[in-house]
Structure formats: C-alpha cells, structure tokens
C-alpha cells in the first residue's frame, strides 16, 4: 500500500515536472518577453539590464529551477495584458470555476447513476430507449451549443433564469460564493446543467453497460438462487460492483469538467478561470497561459491520485497485501 502510494506520488511529480517544463519553454522560447515588457522605446542598456534582471543570461537549467521555485510559491510574474500578478488574477476567478464544476459533477452523478441503473435493469422498457436516444444526442451536442439552446429557451423565450454572470456573490475569506444568495443560485442553474449534461450521459452509459456486465455474472445468479430480494441483488450486489469504473471515470471527468468549463464560461460570461485562459490565448498572454496550465496539471494530478486511493477504499480485492480479501457486505 505505502509502496504503491509512493510510486504514484513519484509519477505525479514526474508529470508536474514535464508540464512545468512545457510552461517554462513557453516563457523562455515563445515570443520575446523582453521586447514585450519593454514596449517600443528601449536602448541596449535597458535591454541588457532587463535580461539580467529576468535571469535570461543564466544557464538554461538555472532558469528552469528558478521557474519551478517561483511556480511552487504561486509566483508566475505579471500578466502581459492586465499588468497584474498572475496568481492574484487566478485566485480571484478560482471560486467561480470550482463552484460551477463541482455542481456540474454532482448533478451528473445524481442524475446519471440512477438513469444508468434503470436502463441497465429494464433494458427493453420504452423509457430506457428514450434515455439512450437522448444520451446519444447529448454526446453529439457540443457543450457550447447546449448552453446556447438553454439560454434561448429559459432566458430569451421564458425569461425565467439569467443568461450571464454569477448573480450576487458573498465573500467568505478570499473565497466568493454564489450558493448563499437567490440570484447566485439562479445564475448557477443553466451553466451547471450545460456543463454536466455531457458527463451525465457518459456516466449513464457507463453504469448501464457495467450493470449489464455484472448482472450476467455467476455470483448474481447465485444471489438470486439464494432467494434474495431483487432490491438486495440489484443494489447490494450489482450496483456495488459497478462502482469501481464509475469512480475512475467520474474522477477523470471532474478534470475534464474543469477544462470544459472554458466553453461554458464563455457562453454564460461566467467570470471564471476558463474565460481568463481563453483571453490569454487570444492575446498571447504567456504568463497567464503558463500558470493556468500548471494549475490544471496540478488539479489533474491530485484528482488522479485521489481516484487511485479511492480504489483501495472501494475494491477489497486490491487490499490483498493487508490480508482483507474478498467478501460482500450486502
């Protein structure tokens, strides 16, 4: 167990170093940071001083080490576009994105899992067919288009819900939340449905196929032969054993949700990190791009790590080295 955690940690660090290297290369080799920072009017002494100040004359590995050292402390320099510290910009927008993403993930789970169980158990009912057809359309609809359709129906035509922004937010320390005000909650509804819909269909299809697989196994037949109720078989035995892949995919999808928040945030003019990133790509704002990249990588690595550790909690077969093999609690 401990060996496994250490191995996974080392892998994660490797990924982070690789990403930091990409981010650093962006800084060092793409575009000319000195020219960008000095603007049009500068002479050679200014330029030399700037290069020395930024440490650009030092060897490559020293620069990289400096970059990593600064990055760990959250220091990514100034945004070229807004001339403000990048970490400050990102932390201002972090709560908006995280709140939206987690809500979308929870929505995807609490709707997707029951739908998947239902379509897996009653595979031939007409409701299942409708779910499956809708899910296929859901997979083919790009996120931003779902957002536009929802805005058209619920904001433009019905005028029920706001189409942009976060509504009124309440600051808690450095965190701002929209969960405590009516307008904040209303503003969250459409974006979180938009963002969660794709993952919802994905989770539904996954749970369904896993259920179909598990229901065919011998221990389910045996459980039925023992005379257990359908409820005990379906939920105590079948659903429990579908959860391992569901946890993996949901975990990995959480990362994807945070990334896909980019297009949702653009549609709903949500003041989150995704919008900041898109603007930084449009304006070639390298420090913001690099910082966003590193932060994303950090999220992904942490999520992957948590997913791996959750395996141990969920699947007893993986705990053999502690001698607690097998056994169903249901």
């Amino acid at each position, binding site marked *: 167990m401990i060996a496994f955690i250490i191995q996974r940690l080392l892998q994660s660090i490797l990924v982070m170093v690789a990403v930091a290297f990409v981010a650093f290369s962006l800084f060092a080799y793409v575009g000319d940071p000195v020219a960008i920072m000095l603007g049009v009017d500068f002479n050679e002494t200014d330029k030399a001083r700037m290069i020395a100040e930024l440490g650009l004359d030092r060897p490559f590995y020293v620069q990289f080490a400096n970059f990593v050292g600064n990055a760990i402390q959250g220091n990514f320099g100034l945004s070229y576009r807004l001339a403000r510290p990048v970490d400050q910009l990102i932390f201002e927008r972090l709560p908006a994105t995280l709140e939206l993403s987690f809500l979308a993930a929870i929505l995807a789970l609490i709707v997707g899992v029951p739908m998947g169980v239902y379509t897996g158990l009653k595979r031939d009912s007409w409701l299942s067919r409708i779910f499956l057809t809708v899910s296929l359309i859901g997979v083919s609809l790009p996120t931003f*288009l779902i957002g536009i359709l929802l805005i058209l129906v619920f904001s433009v035509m019905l005028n029920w819900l706001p189409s942009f922004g976060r509504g009124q937010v309440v600051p808690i320390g450095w965190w701002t939340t929209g969960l405590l005000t009516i307008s904040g909650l209303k503003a969250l509804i459409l974006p979180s449905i938009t963002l969660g819909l794709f993952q919802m269909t994905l989770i539904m299809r996954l749970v369904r196929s896993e259920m179909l697989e598990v229901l065919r196994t011998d221990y389910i037949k045996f459980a039925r032969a023992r005379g257990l109720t359908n409820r005990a078989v379906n939920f105590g035995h079948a659903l429990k054993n579908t959860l391992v892949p569901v946890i993996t995919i949901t975990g990995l999808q959480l990362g994807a949700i945070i990334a896909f928040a980019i297009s949702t945030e653009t549609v709903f003019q949500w003041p989150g990190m995704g919008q900041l990133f898109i603007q930084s790509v449009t304006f070639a704002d390298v420090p913001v791009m690099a910082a966003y990249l590193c932060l994303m990588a950090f999220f992904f690595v942490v999520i992957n790590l948590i997913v791996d550790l959750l395996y141990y909690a969920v699947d007893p077969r993986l705990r053999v080295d502690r001698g607690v093999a097998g056994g169903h609690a249901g």
Partner: protein
Amino acid sequence: MATSVRKDGAEKRRSVLARAFDSDVFYSFRRSPVAVAAAVVTLASFVGAIFAPWIAPHNPFDLRTLNLMEASTPPVWIDGGTWKFILGADDQGRDVLSAILYGARISLFVGFCSVLFAMVLGVGLGLISGYVGGVVDAAIMRVADVQLSFPAILIALLVDGVARVALPREIHDDIAIYVLVLAIGVSNWVQYARTVRGSTLVERRKEYVQAAQVIGLHPAAIMARHVLPNVMGPVLVIGTINLAIAIVTEATLSFLGVGVPSTQPSLGTLIRTGNNYLFSGEWWITIFPGAALVIMVLSVNLLGDWLRDALNPKLR
C-alpha cells in the same frame, strides 16, 4: 450470424480497404436502418459541403451580392420571410443556408485533415514504439500517458495559443486553418498510437515478420509494408469516431474565438457570431448552423458506432 456470406468474399481479400467493404460488413449494414440513415445523412452533408460553391443559392463571400436592406430576414415559414432566404438571412443580409454549406465545408476540411494528421502521427509512433521497443517505446508511451491525463481540448488550445504567440498576427490569420489542423491533430494521436502499438506487439512475434527479418529487409520496410496493413483495421474505426470529435473540437475552438478567422467562417464561427443576435430575437442566425453541426456530428457518430460493432465480432 453471416458465415455463409463471409466465405464468398474470403478469396478476394487483398487490402484492408477491400476487407472493410467485405460482404459481411455490408450485410450488417443493410440490416441496420440506423446505420443506413446515418450513412445517407453523412453522405448528404459531405456532398453539400464539398459542392457548396455550386449548390448554395448565394455566395456569402461575394460582398457585392449582399444587400443590407435584406439583413435579418427571418426563415421562409415565418412572417416576413422570402424564398430567397429559406433559412433566413444574417445581420449583413447573408443567406444562412449558403453560409452553413460553406461553413460545413471548412468544418469538414479541418476535421478530415486533423484526423488524417493524428492518424499518421499516431500510427507512425505506435508502429515504431511497438516494433522497436526498449527506450524508444518507453519514451513515446510516457509522453502519451502524460498527454492522456489532459483533455484533448486543452492540448489543442495550448498548441493554438503557442502558434498565436510565435506567429505575427497577419500571418496567423492566413494559416489559421492549418494551425487548427495541427492543434487538433496533435491533441488526438495518443489513441491511435496505443492501439497500433498493442497490435504491433502481437504482429511482431508472428512468422511472416520473422521471415521478413531473416531475408534482411530494412525494419522501416517491414513496418510499412508488412506490419502496417495488419494493424490498420481498428485504426479506421477510431478514425471515424474521431472525425466527429475533431469536428466538435474545431467548432468549440472557433466558437471560443481561437479557431478559424471570421473571414472564412466554419460552423463554429457562424454560431459564435450568431450568438450575439440571440437576444434580439434573431435565433435563426445561430440555431441553424448549430443544428447543421449536430446533425453532421450525430450521423458520423452513429456510423462510427455501427462500424465498431460490425468490425468487432466479439460484440455480436
């Protein structure tokens, strides 16, 4: 299920392409109404897109034919609509239907090229990885692992962003389409590489490869002429499904404003510009390009799903 049909074609199998059109697959194609419908729609949208300059009622890029008096004409079935603009006109008097046909052309072009690019890159690296093995294999697969832990859209955005920083603005607009192809291609190669590497590892141990090695063929020749044809089957299936993903990725990037420039609008660009008129009630400017995108992607997806099931006997 169709063994009798399968035997007839067995002799004629020469290339991968011939095998893909094997009668067994055609049999299952005829049996599946969804697949036939999807194929018809896919074909229709491809034809519409490719022959857009000849089919489209107007040329949306010819500014002389635009009339601002006709701007924002609604679709024909709504009061004020005319047959001149079946799906309505946008804010500059451009015919929405024509814009969709021309836009689909660019979307499909980017989709196809990026799938092809990802395929060549992924299959090539997968072959080398599986055939050569050792340090090369480890290096390529670690890169693949790292990339796979990121969503493709993020990689594509990053490549696009780097291109934006590295290239001056004027040049960037001219080659934006190729930058997009590169960005989407680079973000999708991993799946091909992993699949091809897996099958190459199996093929490498077979006798025909050993025979080729014994007669002293160059490894590159063995990979290209002998191993490659035997690992291409699954690649075509992944390619079909990835075409849908590539089209959606292109649309998303263009919607975000980092894709093709608005002088050459793809479906995503049309949706982006049309989105501004949603609140003034001109929904047709954005909804019709959106519908066209969804229909195209859905039919390609359905076709890919069917192809995967048809080529994989285990799933039957």
